């Protein structure tokens, strides 16, 4: 398709109506009543003047002059056509967020616009990148519009967010410096976008939308408590009705841009809790499904000779909701004895090492803490007096150190794991500080996380669900409600599953099956107020025009000369009439 490098020159086209007006005014027929046409007969056959000869000539000459002006104006505008060169590399970034599911179908509009764009251009090679939480290619490069559109049909719009910036970076890397990048989304480009590699087409519509932006289901005593937050993402207050638990409902008003929280006390149940809003501009965020939270509890055995230490540990276990004090069949043994757990046991061990007085030093810091380790979450060890041996040799991976002296280490055992805590309880303030129960809680939580099953059952879209897997399973099967099943490999007794489909997702791990719920709950994606339709940017930067387009002004000037020659010939033939 030709482009104009100096489109302002098209202002010369104003000469077209001016010329036509001159002709019209000149050739306009004045009406005059005469007594009789008797004396006007025979004028038609006149060779010079007075006949229709000049009238018949006028349109042709006018047409030639109009064409000449048109060609000159277009030539002055610097017309260029795409040179027949190699295939143009086009990388299309597709917004995979769920706001593209709005009722006016921005996804469908974007695909149609893409089809038209590709069909109207020259040869190309297109790659499609789906911009969801983790941008990725949709398929191999395509070179025909029907192929590209067919691949674009796989454009999935279920993501809780779209990493457009990451996808565009990926597009630049894929396409290189001469690639043309087209972003198809529902939100307009926030700033001015000039000529360059990037074009940004948005197909959204700014509409009010009511959405469930938060939902929580917790244990409350013998029953359960559910919180559902509904947000009015519109510019005017709205009235709505939330239907839940099958047959119950609550109606309420929400001011513009405000949220309304419903707290519901329910009887304990294993069934999913479903909350539903009426249909509006975006349907996917009108529904929330909540499963009951699991209540795991770790069996903890205590074999401690130091009375003070034992008292601290037992007090912790008795108060921790996720731990149960047992005397047999423990999953975690807390002890200050050098032995006590057979190697064949899968139990974890927290071994408190209390070294002889002669080897002990009292440390007040600074303590070097591995903050990436699950044991250290929430700990500070601030103002803690930590008495321990000064030997720098302690088996296992250091977790807390003072200088080069390891104070806490952890290492796998044959079937379990052993954490070593080096401390003299009688000379340390660690047991009296908040860090000690935190350390114990982290240990219990860490071990619970490695046990088979789900730690949580309700997730936000695009968050990661962790499933503990026992045994030697290599992969689990993930079966979302409305998507194809997929296999996810097991990595170190656990599976990381991206919660990428709204609704219930079943996970088949060997013989056992688990289910978790996924809800949108993304304020940004549900907010359609800033959506809009626009096209920003242009691929026709100076370098592109120079390299890929050839000027055809010379051809137009040549045609103009031909027309003017023909014009002159016609005038000559008609004896100077115009």
């Amino acid at each position, binding site marked *: 398709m030709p482009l104009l490098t100096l489109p302002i020159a098209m202002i010369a086209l104003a000469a077209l109506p001016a010329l036509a007006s001159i002709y019209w005014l000149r050739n306009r027929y*004045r009406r005059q009543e005469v007594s*009789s*046409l*008797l004396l006007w007969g025979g004028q038609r056959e006149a060779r010079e003047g007075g006949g229709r000869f000049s009238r018949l000539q006028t349109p042709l000459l006018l047409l030639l002059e109009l064409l000449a002006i048109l060609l000159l104006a277009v030539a002055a505008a610097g017309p260029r056509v795409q040179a027949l060169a190699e295939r143009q590399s086009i990388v299309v970034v597709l917004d995979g967020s769920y706001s593209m599911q709005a009722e006016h179908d921005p996804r469908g509009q974007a695909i149609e616009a893409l089809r038209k764009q590709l069909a109207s251009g020259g040869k190309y090679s297109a790659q499609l990148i789906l911009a969801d939480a983790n941008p990725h290619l949709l398929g191999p490069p395509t070179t025909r519009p029907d192929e590209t559109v067919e691949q674009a049909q796989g454009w999935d719009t279920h993501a809780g967010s779209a990493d457009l910036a990451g996808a565009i970076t990926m597009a630049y890397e894929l396409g290189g410096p001469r690639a043309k990048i087209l972003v198809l989304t529902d939100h307009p480009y926030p700033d001015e976008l000039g000529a360059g590699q990037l074009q940004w087409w948005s197909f959204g519509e700014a509409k009010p939308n009511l959405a469930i932006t938060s939902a929580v289901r917790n244990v409350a005593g013998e029953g359960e408590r559910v919180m559902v937050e509904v947000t009015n993402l519109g510019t005017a207050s709205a009235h709505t009705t939330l239907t839940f638990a099958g047959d119950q409902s609550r109606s309420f008003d929400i001011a513009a841009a405000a949220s309304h929280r419903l707290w519901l006390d329910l009887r304990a149940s294993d069934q999913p809790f479903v909350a539903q809003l009426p249909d509006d501009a975006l349907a996917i965020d009108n529904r929330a499904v909540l499963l009951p939270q699991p209540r795991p509890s770790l069996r903890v055995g205590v074999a401690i000779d130091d009375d003070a230490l034992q008292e601290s540990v037992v007090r912790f276990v008795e108060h921790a909701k996720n731990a149960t004090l047992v005397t047999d069949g423990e999953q975690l043994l807390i002890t200050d004895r050098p032995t006590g757990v057979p190697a064949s046991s899968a139990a974890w061990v927290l071994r408190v090492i209390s070294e002889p007085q002669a080897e002990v030093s009292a440390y007040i810091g600074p303590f070097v803490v591995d903050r990436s380790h699950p044991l250290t979450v929430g700990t500070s060890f601030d103002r803690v007096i930590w008495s321990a041996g000064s030997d720098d040799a302690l088996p296992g991976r250091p977790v807390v150190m003072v200088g080069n002296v390891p104070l806490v280490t952890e290492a796998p055992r044959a079937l379990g794991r052993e954490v070593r805590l080096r401390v003299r309880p009688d000379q340390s303030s660690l047991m009296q500080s908040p860090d000690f129960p935190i350390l114990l809680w982290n240990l219990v939580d860490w071990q619970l996380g490695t046990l088979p099953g789900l730690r949580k059952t309700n997730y936000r879209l695009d968050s990661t669900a962790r499933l503990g897997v026992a045994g030697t399973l290599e992969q689990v099967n993930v079966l979302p409600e409305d998507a194809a099943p997929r296999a996810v490999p097991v990595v170190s007794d656990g599976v990381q599953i991206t919660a990428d489909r709204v609704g219930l997702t079943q996970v088949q791990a060997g013989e056992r099956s688990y289910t978790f719920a996924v809800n949108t709950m993304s304020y940004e994606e549900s907010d359609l107020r800033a959506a809009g339709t626009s096209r920003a940017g242009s691929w026709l930067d100076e370098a592109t025009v120079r390299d890929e387009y050839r000027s055809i002004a010379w051809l137009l000037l040549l045609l103009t000369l031909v027309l003017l020659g023909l014009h002159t010939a016609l005038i000559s033939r008609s004896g100077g009439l115009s």
Partner: protein
Amino acid sequence: MDEDVRRGLSEGEVAGTRYRLTAMRQTPAGRVGMHLGHRVGNSIEFMDYREYKPGDDLRRVDWSVYARSDRLTVKLYREEVSPHLDLLVDASRSMAVTASPKARASAALAAALSTAAGNAKFTHALYQAGDRVTPVQGGAGRPGGWQGLDFAGREGLDAALRQSPPAWRRRGTRVVISDLLFETKPLPVVQQLGRDAAGLCIVQLLGQCDVTPPARGNLRLVDSETGQVREIYIDAAAEKRYLQKLQNHHDAWYSACRQVGATLVQLIAEPLLASWDLSPLVEAGVLQVK
């Protein structure tokens, strides 16, 4: 009747008081008694002798001449005539063309002629030639009393004459007022007009728009009678051709009139109404200044 036409009648009546209609070249005929004609008649005024021919009134034989010469000779006397003017006004639409006072001038001229006829003791009758030739109501009286003179005919004068030939007075004087801008052969028309007339005068009354071509440029000409349209480009050549055609047209009518012994006078409406100079009619022997 149009107010403009009625105003023309008043103007013409006033203008006509200064003139008297004359007998034309041919001997006028009319009712016996009031004027001496050029022909032989039954008046008491002696005119000539001639040899008796069978059929002559024996009462006219001059027996004294017969006694002297033994030849039957009859005495000829001038005839006495009562002259009459038949006025025919072309009432076609071409006489009422837009932006031309031809209609008013036609009515005024007819009024002037009728007044001049009255001054010369002529009786008169007025006819209008629209789609048909019909007598104008009150046309024998003073112009102020004429009724129904309108210029709405869609046919030319020749067609109206063919359609309904008027019952004109034999041997009367006839004056026809028309622009003559219709397509026909002039001679048969003039012959029909002059048949049994003592004298015939055709006044070609044109407008300034008829004798002067329109301004140069493209024109969409509309025929006032037929509504026909013709688009032409006027330039010097076209102007020249038009004027030549007008002259040829006039010449054709003039030639026809000469053949029949009629008089053709051309008048232009605008100067006529402005100055009431009827000298062309005087020069043609149609009118006499009182």
